[in-house]
């Protein structure tokens, strides 16, 4: 039991309610041209800071959502936590275990099997050559949860029923299902690994609204039944409002604000969060004009100095352009903004 020896070196977080703690997480991608081009064209290395100094905590049984526009790094955070990427810097602590610990490979795998992921594209996330039964049974085989073939089949049937499909559907291939049904299969596969923590990367953005509501309802129901914790990645603020207990807003690889859902939506602090909320279409037909956000997201290869939002921010001053704001707590909200900090913006 060398594994336990590794764990004890890590201090449990003071708050046992916390399941996942992400600290100063960073991931850079090298997008440099090939060596030959760099030599001849005399260009240097180019690095995209997809995720840069992100810290947050997810409590047990919570749904923590990350929102932001495309390219803000929210999906990269999900992939870092689930282990598809190695962090460039920072730490991820899952249930008191530092996932980045050296020499704890087998143990890390043990921890990683407690989390599962649901992907965005229901057409690409299921192997088209596998029968649904085999797709759903894969985590069972990988973790050796059951070995008897009949038992595996019974378990797969049970999972199919839980996600609203019929056990008979196991015999079919993915292409025989609609997008919504495929996403149910994806969820069943995730549940087969008996996870505590589910990472959902835009699970409904490829679906039609009427099907989206089915999947969202199913996910809520499963969360209650199995006491799951969710990390929910989405660009749709209305969906995020509906599912989350806590919301984090990302911009250009940074977490600019995170707070409890009601607090964030009712009293947004960061100017970017305010802009996003103002840009939501008005479905109530109240006549509220949506205020378009000015400008566009800059390239993450050469992000602006200081606060990454300052070129688009109506409250920016010299300090915003020079100094990078850090997350601080103001009235239950973690926010990284000089204007809020200085009281220029409340």
């Amino acid at each position: 039991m060398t594994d336990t020896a590794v764990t004890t070196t890590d201090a449990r977080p003071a708050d046992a309610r916390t399941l996942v703690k992400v600290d100063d997480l960073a991931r850079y991608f090298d997008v440099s041209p090939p060596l030959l081009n760099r030599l001849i064209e005399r260009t240097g290395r180019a690095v995209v800071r997809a995720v840069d100094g992100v810290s947050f905590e997810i409590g047990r049984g919570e749904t923590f959502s990350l929102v932001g526009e495309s390219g803000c790094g929210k999906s990269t955070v999900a992939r870092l936590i689930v282990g598809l990427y190695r962090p460039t810097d920072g730490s991820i602590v899952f249930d008191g275990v530092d996932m980045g610990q050296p020499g704890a490979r087998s143990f890390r795998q043990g921890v990683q099997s407690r989390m599962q992921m649901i992907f965005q594209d229901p057409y690409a996330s299921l192997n088209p050559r596998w029968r649904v039964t085999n797709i759903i049974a894969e985590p069972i085989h990988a973790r050796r949860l059951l070995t008897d073939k009949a038992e595996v089949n019974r378990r797969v049937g049970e999972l199919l029923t839980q996600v609203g499909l019929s056990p008979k559907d196991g015999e079919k291939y993915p292409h025989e299902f609609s997008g919504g049904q495929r996403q149910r299969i994806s969820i069943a596969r995730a549940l087969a690994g008996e996870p505590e923590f589910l990472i959902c990367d835009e699970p409904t953005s490829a679906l039609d609204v009427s099907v989206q509501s089915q999947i969202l309802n199913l996910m809520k129901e499963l969360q209650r039944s199995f006491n799951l914790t969710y990390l929910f990645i989405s660009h749709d603020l209305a969906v995020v409002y509906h599912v989350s207990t806590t919301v984090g807003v990302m911009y250009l690889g940074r977490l600019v604000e995170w707070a409890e859902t009601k607090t964030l939506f009712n009293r947004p602090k960061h100017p970017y969060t305010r802009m996003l909320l103002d840009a939501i279409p008005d479905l109530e037909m109240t006549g509220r004009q949506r205020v378009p956000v000015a400008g566009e997201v800059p390239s993450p290869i050469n992000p602006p100095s200081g606060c990454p939002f300052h070129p688009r921010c109506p409250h920016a001053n010299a300090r915003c352009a020079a100094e990078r704001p850090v997350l601080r707590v103001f009235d239950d909200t973690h926010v990284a903004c000089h204007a809020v900090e200085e009281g220029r913006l409340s």
Partner: protein
Amino acid sequence: MVAIDHSSGVVHRARDLAHRFFDSDIYYSFRASKVTMVAAGVTAVMFLGALFAPLLSPQNPFDPAALDLLDAFTPPVWVEGGGWKYMLGTDDQGRDLFSAILYGSRISLGVGFAAVLFAMLLGISAGLLAGYVGGKVDATIMRIADVQISFPSILIVLLIDGVLRGVLPAGRHDDLALIVVVLAIGFSSWPQFARTVRGSTLVEKNKEYVQAARVIGRQPLVIMLRHVLPNVMGPVLVIATISLAVAILSEATLSFLGVGVPPTEPSLGTLIRIGQDFLFSGEWWIVIFPGATLAILVLAVNLLGDWLRDALNPKLR
């Protein structure tokens, strides 16, 4: 009871598979193309002829005792002096050409299949590894493939053939000749498979189902073989078909040059080599019939390959 269940399950599976095949787009596009159907028919006839050569041929051309030198240079049946005993005539040894072609196709096809299988094994493994692992492994494997591709493949075949012959103990050459030819031809065509598989692997690797398998905790080898491999097999099949035609031709070339299979067990290429000596002395049939058989076989297999490429390409559907 259990046994019955099992067998009925197998029957059910087979029926299901057959149903899926006859209902598929591939089968539909097959039925829609007359050329392909003819090509498939020709290929099938040649396969069966080669497979059942001992049953179909009037003579065993590999058995020197069965040959009658007095019957040498008998022309085909419709030429004066020919007879039904030797339908397509005989060669300089009195070998019945019809039998020789059947047996010869057997060797040509056998060598072709074996060589392609060997190339597939090498190429798919190399391509999967290069595509999935990436980095230095990828660079190394693909540079080797590039270098090999930059030489004409027949040169590579001759080179490998020569090296293998040099390494092997003298006196066993004839016994091992077939294996040497298979290895030489197979080794010359692995880069194509590697390139294709690598390309498809790079695409598949980034699909979410592969990421899902990684999240589930599957080992890279399992992911490569069980997830990626089945999804890259489409283009491989196309290349395999076309490579089969090329391999048959390469074998014929080697045999024609005299470095292929031994003349005691002639393949189509050997027959053509023997025949070309007599082309201008009037015994044209010795070279024409094996040559035509080779041309038709290669053309048919190539046409099948072309069709398969179009049928598996969703853009052309």
